[in-house]
């Protein structure tokens, strides 16, 4: 037995010494991507993780700068004709693919043609089709209206869509409506170029699945990809802006376990990790600087407005306001996230929109007295002629400890403030989505992250026939305002329309906004200039290393 112990100890010791000799990565950085990028084809991807990688290896017409503003990417410059809503992009002559050939306007045309084809199965196609002239019709396989055909012909487009390669380095695009965030969308991976010859050689299924199956034109190239473990990006020396790229190598670890990521960081194996509340508190106590970013997501309850009791807006309002969102943030979320006082989160338009909307409701009643909320609740129930005891509420949520903790908090809040017992049902992610789709729930905690920097990305969720509207909420007035806002060319008038939409949500509360999420992360001291925003979840392009 003694020998055995000695053997094990000496084995461990020898191994540790070996480990001690391993050199720390000095030429590059190691960060935690926290997931395997599931689909790295720019055309079909929907994953934040994939996009975090893609924006380092492929450039679109534009790229986002540190403040989420679109700046020239593959397009060196562009002209805009406000009358015809047409952009003409002039591509860089020195933008090349990793095999050396130039990036041409045709690469964009091919990518967009493929993207807006139903058979491709690109999930973002429906979202972006609204922006491009003729894209919705192409995607749905419907005929263009005579007016649209005339417009296309007048602008000199040969086909039935509003984009064309004028020559190798000139691309012309026409918008379907005066879209103020169009240039930002061109920095979104769905609109990135793809060389047709290579795409067809690799095959649409295999494209973007392995390091050799993806064409890159960006600041980095993939040199190693061990699925579900890590990926290595190496600086592309031929990149047009290579002089301004400071880091030679980025190693992206796919660590899902939060303890492991933390241990790796403490051990100096990782340069950047996300932090949970306890980890942030610990590192802050050790005097480390904790960084935050607003990930742009809003978190809210979706109410099933078809259920008896829940069809009453007073009941829904009481359920929302009975949850002390301030306390939720200080004692459960435990970071700089903010309690929601309207729906569209402050990440949109730099917070200007949320500011204009203002506080639509108080999160905590004066003196913490919830009797008014409870009275509202009972009033609503009385209107529907049911008692609190008949109201069998079920909140469904994802599996996992965070979801369990959140719901345990809500459950107790409703119990103490309204005197009702709400049942919590945890389930797998797919099961929750299925239940939401089939409207088999009373309340669900859901979140939404923005696709583009405009309040519309949130507000259009609650239109009557919206695919993401699980509440069954249908308000013709709301639908009409949305339709109006979509085509309103005047920015000020449009904003007024959007604000009135916010007010309708606050009044009817098909959803109960709770909080707007901010996230904590930390970088090693040698690192500076990491960009993390709602639209640029991880960007190491602007990074500096000491």
């Amino acid at each position: 037995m003694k020998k055995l112990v000695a053997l094990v100890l000496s084995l461990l010791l020898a191994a540790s010494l070996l480990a001690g000799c391993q050199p720390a990565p000095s030429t590059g950085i190691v960060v935690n991507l926290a997931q395997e990028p599931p689909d790295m084809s720019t055309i079909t991807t929907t994953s934040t993780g994939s996009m975090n990688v893609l924006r380092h290896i492929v450039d679109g017409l534009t790229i986002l700068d540190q403040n989420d503003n679109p700046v020239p990417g593959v397009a060196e410059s562009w002209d805009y004709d406000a009358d015809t809503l047409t952009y003409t992009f002039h591509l860089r002559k020195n933008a090349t693919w990793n095999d050396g050939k130039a990036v041409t306007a045709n690469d964009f045309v091919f990518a967009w043609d493929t993207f807006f084809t139903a058979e491709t199965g690109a999930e973002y196609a429906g979202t972006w089709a609204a922006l491009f002239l003729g894209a919705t019709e192409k995607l749905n396989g419907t005929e263009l209206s005579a007016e649209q055909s005339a417009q296309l012909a007048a602008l000199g487009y040969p086909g039935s869509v509003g984009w064309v390669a004028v020559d190798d380095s000139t691309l012309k695009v026409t918008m379907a409506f005066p879209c103020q965030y169009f240039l930002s969308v061109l920095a979104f991976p769905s609109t990135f170029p793809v060389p047709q010859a290579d795409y067809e050689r690799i095959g649409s299924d295999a494209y973007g699945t392995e390091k050799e199956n993806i064409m890159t034109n960006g600041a980095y190239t993939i040199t190693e990809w061990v699925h579900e473990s890590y990926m290595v990006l190496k600086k592309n020396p031929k990149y047009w802006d290579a002089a301004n790229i400071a880091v030679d190598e980025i190693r992206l670890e796919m660590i899902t376990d939060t303890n492991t990521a933390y241990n790796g960081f403490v051990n100096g194996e990782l340069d950047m990790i996300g932090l949970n509340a306890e980890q942030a508190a610990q590192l802050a106590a050790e005097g480390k600087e904790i960084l935050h970013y607003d990930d742009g997501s809003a978190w809210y309850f979706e109410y099933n407005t078809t259920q008896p009791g829940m069809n009453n807006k007073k009941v829904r309002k009481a359920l929302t306001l009975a949850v002390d969102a301030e306390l939720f943030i200080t004692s459960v979320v435990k970071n700089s996230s903010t309690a929601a006082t309207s729906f569209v989160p402050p990440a949109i338009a730099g917070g200007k929109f949320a500011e204009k909307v203002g506080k639509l409701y108080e999160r905590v009643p004066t003196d913490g007295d919830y009797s008014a909320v409870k009275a509202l609740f009972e009033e609503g129930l009385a209107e529907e002629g049911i008692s609190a005891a008949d109201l069998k509420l079920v909140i469904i949520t994802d599996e996992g400890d965070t979801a369990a903790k959140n719901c345990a908090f809500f459950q107790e809040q409703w119990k103490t403030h309204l005197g009702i017992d709400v049942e919590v049902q945890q389930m797998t992610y797919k099961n929750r989505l299925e239940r939401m789709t089939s409207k088999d729930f009373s309340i669900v905690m859901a979140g939404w992250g923005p696709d583009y920097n405009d309040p519309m990305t949130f507000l259009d969720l609650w239109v009557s026939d919206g695919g993401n509207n699980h509440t069954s909420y249908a308000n013709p007035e709301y639908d009409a305002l949305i339709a109006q806002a979509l085509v309103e060319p005047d920015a000020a008038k449009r904003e007024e329309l959007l604000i009135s939409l916010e007010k309708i949500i606050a009044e009817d509360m098909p959803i109960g906004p709770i909080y707007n999420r901010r996230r904590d992360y930390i970088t090693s001291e040698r690192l500076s200039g990491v960009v993390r925003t709602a639209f640029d979840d991880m960007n190491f392009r602007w990074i500096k290393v000491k």
Partner: protein
Amino acid sequence: MSMSKAKNAAKAAFEPEKLLPIDCDLSAEDFAHVGPDAERRDEIVRPSISYWRDAMRRLKENKVAVACMIFLVVLILFALIVPLVSPYTMSEQHLQHPNEPMFFRAEDGHMHIFGTDDLGRDLFMRLWLGTRTSLYIAVSVVVINLLIGVIYGALAGYFGGWIDNIMMRFIEIIIGIPYLIIVILLSMIMKSGVTSLIIAYAIVGWVGSARLTRGQVLSLRTQEFIIAAHALGSSPWRLIGSHIVPNLLSVLIVNLTLAIPSAIFTEAFLSYIGLGVPLPHPSLGNLAQEGTLRFMFYPQQLLLPAIVISLTMLSFNMLGDGLRDALDPRLRT
């Protein structure tokens, strides 16, 4: 022993001069027929001890086993009583005192003996309530394993041949289907709760005991005493029940005691999917799981449930060993 002693006594008493004289006059009338003594005839000098009583006696003599039994009784009492008398409820959140250490005293004088969790819930209360849940699971596991696993395995092993073959292939299919799929499907048709939990466990939980039993029976059934019993015309049920199972017990007991912790943690996993105990109910498994997320900062949140689980398992195991020794037919004195 007693026979030879009696002989010695007889030898010692053999003294010729003390014998009656040859001419002693005795006749048949001097003797009276007393008849058979019904009472005495059936009297057996040493009381017959049944197998089970003997086992209990030996178990009682085993100090470690007794200590374990006492520990388990105390544990059960705590699990039953603490939640009843605690000033806190299991869900009550003291959000101003989250993650407090052991023996934390709040301003209002209330004491949290084991501190509080992330939401400021009293861990002493939650731990004992969780113990109650987990012990309930533990007992169910033993019953399920015994009822389904042992019978299934014993039958397969005893009959052998194609019956065994089919029964074992069935087990392979059951283990082969990913448990997660089974569990997700169950979670769609059942509500969370202890019953669902036990059903989810029962579906596959018994196969370990079944395989082990079958392996042992395969080995046992060729042993001489089984062949002898069979030759004497014992029915299969009697053979399995009174000859094979007692010889399996030692391996089975170990297997059962080892199955308990895995069931306790299966519960934690099932609660995750929404099949386990419903929120905000605690169990030792999910307390330990939550504790693991924060043990670097609040080690007591992992250590306390882990210690309760380990000590419970240790006493189950020691008791199991004691039981094994007590039940071992070869160790009878």
